[in-house]
C-alpha cells in the first residue's frame, strides 16, 4: 500500500469556519473558539489503495496574525481557501490570499475554494461567481455547511485527489512524500533508503517507514 504525505494550509478570514471544518473532519466539532496563531492537525484518508496523510495548518483569521501566514503556507502542497457565503468581504479576502500565494509559493499547489455556512439564508456570494473564480485559478469549488456536515468529506477528498494527481503529473515535486510500505524495493529492484538530506521537520513523521524522494513507479 502506498502512502502520500502532504502539507495543507487552511486560509480565510476570521470566523468563516476553518477550525470548524477541520474539527468536523476529525470528529471534534464542538466548542470552537478563535484560533490563536495556528493549530496543527494530522489527518488520514484512503483513496482506493492509497493512504493519504495530511498535515494541516489551521491558521487564525484575525488581522493581527496576518503577517505570520507565510510561516504556515511556505512549503504547503495544498490550500483550502475558506470563506463565509454570507459575508462578501470574506470572499474578496480569498482573492488576496490567492495573489499572495502566487507571489510567494513557487511549487504548484492544489487549491480548493470553499464557501461555508450554506445553511444560512443571508447569502451574499453568488454560487456562479464563486465557481467562476475558482475555475479561473485552477481550484475546485465547494459550497458546504460544516454545521450540517454537508460537503465536508468532499473537500478533503478533493484535496487528496489533487495531491495524487499532482504527484503523478509532476515528477519533480519532492515536497509531497510517497512511501511504499508493502515492499522495500521499487520496480527496479533497488532498495529504498531513507533519504539522507531530509529537512529536520520531516524526521518526525516516518515511524519505521522507509522513506524516499518521489520516484515514478
Amino acid at each position, binding site marked *: 500500500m502506498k502512502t502520500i504525505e502532504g502539507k495543507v494550509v487552511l486560509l480565510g478570514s*476570521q470566523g468563516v469556519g476553518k*477550525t470548524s471544518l477541520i*474539527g468536523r473532519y476529525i470528529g*471534534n466539532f464542538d*466548542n*470552537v*473558539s*478563535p*484560533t*490563536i*496563531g*495556528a*493549530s*496543527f*492537525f494530522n489527518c488520514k484518508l484512503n483513496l482506493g489503495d492509497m493512504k493519504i496523510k495530511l498535515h494541516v495548518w*489551521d491558521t*487564525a483569521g*484575525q*488581522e*493581527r*496574525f496576518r503577517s*505570520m501566514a507565510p*510561516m504556515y503556507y511556505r512549503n504547503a502542497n495544498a490550500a483550502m481557501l475558506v470563506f463565509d457565503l454570507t459575508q462578501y468581504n470574506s470572499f474578496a479576502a480569498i482573492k488576496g490570499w490567492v495573489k499572495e500565494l502566487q507571489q510567494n509559493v513557487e511549487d504548484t499547489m492544489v487549491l480548493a475554494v470553499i464557501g461555508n455556512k450554506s445553511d444560512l439564508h443571508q447569502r451574499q456570494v453568488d454560487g456562479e461567481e464563486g465557481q467562476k473564480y475558482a475555475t479561473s485559478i485552477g481550484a475546485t469549488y465547494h459550497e458546504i455547511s460544516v454545521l450540517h456536515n454537508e460537503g465536508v468529506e468532499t473537500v478533503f477528498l478533493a484535496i487528496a485527489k489533487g495531491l495524487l494527481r499532482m504527484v503523478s503529473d509532476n515528477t519533480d515535486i519532492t515536497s509531497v512524500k510517497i512511501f511504499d510500505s508493502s515492499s522495500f524495493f521499487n520496480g527496479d529492484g533497488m532498495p529504498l533508503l531513507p533519504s539522507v538530506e531530509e529537512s*529536520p*521537520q520531516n524526521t*518526525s513523521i516516518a515511524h519505521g517507514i522507509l522513506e524516499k524522494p518521489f520516484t515514478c513507479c
Partner: protein
Amino acid sequence: MAAKESAVETIDDGIAEPGIEPGASSETMLVTTDSFDEYEQEMSSSIDGDRQMKESTGSTISEIQEDSTQDIPISASPQESGKTLSLDDAEMDDVAHRLGQSNIDGDPLRCKAWLAQKKHIFILSQAGKPIYSRYSSEDKLVTVMGVMQALVSFVQAGSDMIRSVHAGDTNFVFVVKGPLILVAVSKTLESVPQLTLQLTYVYNQIISVLTQSQLNRVYDQRRNFDLRRLLTGSERLIDHLLNFMDREPAFFLGAIKCLPLLPSMRSSITQTIIQTCAKIKNLVFAILLANNQLVTLVRMNKFFLHPMDLHIIQNLVDSSESLKTAESWTPICLPKFDSNGYMHGHVSYLSEDCQACLLLLTVDRDVFFVLSDAKQKIVEKLRRTNCLEAINESMNKPTITTADIGLPDMRHVLYKCKSTAQFWNPGFQPPYTTDEEIERLLGLYQCLHHRLHSPSRPLKLIFQQLDKETMLAWVASGFELYVTFEPLVTKPDAIEAVSKLLKWIKKEEERLFILNSPTF
C-alpha cells in the same frame, strides 16, 4: 470600610518578626517586584513616558537569536510635548458642550444598567479614536472618548499629566502610555495605584498581542489609525483579563500560585522537561500550568520571567478554548521580557486525560516540529513515571481550607512569599461562597494591601474589626500576609492563629511552593 475607620487599630509593635519565612528561597525563577513598582514607574515616567519607552527598546529576543535577522524598528516618540494641542477658552467651552451633549445622544449613557456598572474601562488613541470599552460597543461612545481625550491633552498642554479625578464615589483614573490613553471609571474601593496597575495590565495585554514597536509604528504612520482592525478578536482577551483581575489576588499581589505537588513529583516533571529539551537551541521558557497554577517553569540560564508576563500567559491560556483541541504555534510578546519582539509558543495540553497546558517558548520561528516531538516525548515519560496522575490528583482535589488546617477562627488567608514572588491561599469557605461575597472579600484584601503599601504612609501591621469579619494584614521582612477571621476574634487569638498558620505553611512549603529555579 472607610466609615469603620474608628475601629481601626494599627500597631507597628504588637507583633514580632516570626523568625520563619515559609516558602522563602534564595533561588527564584520569577522576577520579584513590589506590585506598586509599576505605579511608581508610571508616576516617575509621567511626561517623559516616551523617553522611558525608547530606552527599553534593547531587544532581549535578538540577543538570544544567534543571527538576528529580524529588524526591530526603534520607536519614534509619538509626539513631542511641545506639539500637544492646547485648549483655549473657546475649546474648553466646546468640551463642556460635548460633555453636555453626550448625555443626550450617547446611547449607553442613557442606559441605567450601563451606568450602574462598577468599573468601566475605556481605551482610546491619543487622537481620541475609540478602541475599547468594557461594557458596550466602543463606537457608541465617540463623544465620551472625545471628552476623555480632550481632558488628557488639556492637562498635557500645561506640561502636566492627568492621573485621576475624584467625583463622589467615583474614581477616574488615567494612564497615558505610548500612543494610547487608558481610562478606568470605578466605583469600587480599589485605590488609584491599584487601578493604575490594572490599566497597565490591559496595556500589556495589548502589547502582548501587537508588540510595542508595531503599536508605535502604526500610529507613526497614521495618527488617526483605527487600532480595532488589529485588535479584532483580542477584545476577548481584554474582557477576560478584566474579569480575571476582579477575582484573582495574583494581580495586585504581583505573585504566582503553584499547583500543590509532592516535591519528588514536581522535580521529576521538571527533570523530564529539562532532559527532553536539553538539546533544543533557543528555547527560553518551558511553562506547565494546571488549573491556572504553575506546575513548573524551566528557564534559559540568565533569563527570568516577570510575574506580569506569566499573568498575561495565564490569561491567554484561560481564555482560549481553542488551545485545548490541537497543538498551537503562536507568536506571543511578553512585554516585560521584550516588549518589541515576538516569541513563538508551542502550546498544547498534555493529553485528553491530563488537562495541564504546556507552553514551550522560543525565539526561533522554525522549530514547531522539534517542539512538537519534544512535547510528545515529555508526555510519554510523564505518563510512565505517574506524573500525569499526580497532576490530575492535585487538580481534582478540593483545595484545603483553614478549617482543615485546624484554625477554626480563621476563614481565609493570602500568603505571599516575597523572595520568590509566589503566593498561596486556601479554599474559600462560608460565607465566601457566592461570587459577590468572594469579590467583596478580595476588595477588602485590596484595601488592606493598599494601606500597607501606601506611598505616603506605609504600614507594617493592620488589625481591623469590621461588621462581618476581622482582618489582619502584616508585612514582615520575608512575606506579606492577609488574614480574614470571624468577626469577634480577639487580637491575641488572632496572633496565635497566625503563628500556627505560619508553622503549617512552613511545614508544607515544599509542596506549596517552588523553591528552586531550574534551567535548561
